[in-house]
């Protein structure tokens, strides 16, 4: 681990690149809140493995946890995906505006 502060985009990409981890994230996403035990059930992997995946997802800012007694519950934190969509949001607006500019310009040069 030599990278001090990986780019959040890269962190999110990495966290979701693993198919098992992505499946864990999707299950968390589909539930309002879910415990490690529930996530392990029927997953085909050990609770330890699930915990590791949750840890990675948490580090990437994709899930948040809440402790209650001896149980820890996880919920999705879609804000973690925001770095990915910033550029798209920017260009979504940018191109819509430019498209309208182009329409106006064409009207002007070819009435």
């Amino acid at each position, binding site marked *: 681990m030599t990278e001090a502060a990986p780019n959040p985009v890269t962190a999110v990409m990495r966290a979701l690149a693993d198919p098992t981890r992505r499946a864990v994230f999707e299950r968390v*996403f589909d539930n309002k809140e879910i415990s490690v035990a529930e996530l392990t059930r029927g997953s085909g992997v050990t609770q330890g493995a699930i915990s590791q995946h949750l840890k990675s997802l948490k580090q990437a800012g994709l899930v948040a946890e809440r402790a209650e007694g001896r149980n820890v519950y996880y919920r999705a934190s*879609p804000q973690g*995906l925001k770095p990915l969509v910033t550029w798209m949001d920017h260009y979504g607006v940018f191109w*819509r505006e*430019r498209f309208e*500019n182009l329409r106006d310009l*064409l009207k002007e*040069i070819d009435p």
Partner: protein
Amino acid sequence: MSAAALNAETRDIVLDDVFPHAPETIWKALTSAQLIARWLMPPTGFEAVEGNTFTYQTKPGGNWDGVIHCRVLEVVPFRRLVYAWKGGDERNVGYGAPLDTVVTWSLTPVEAGTRIQLVHAGFALPRNESAYTIMSGGWKKVVRQLDEISGEDS
């Protein structure tokens, strides 16, 4: 109204509309530096020739000077114009983060004029396998909640 969509599967920006002009007229607006300056931004060094490199100066962000580096990848007169659109800096996140994308303009003559389609493709990490992996599953679900995120910010 133009149809604007954020394609959740491929993460392309797609605009698609019919303009009441001939493809030749629209082509001129897409490939003349003077006209581009009037509706998009003033390009520096643009020529509609494959391999041509040109730049756009946009708003700087963080460690990035705001320069978009473009390269003409494909020119099919009156039909298709494709250019690479790169910018950003590794040290930035969000606006100003590394950007390696491709802009494609396609023109198709139709009865009412010309169907004009803009695709800005390759957001995030287009050559990175993990990016494709994300697209193949889970992304749709994620997008469902993006509305909620924007709601929280406003």
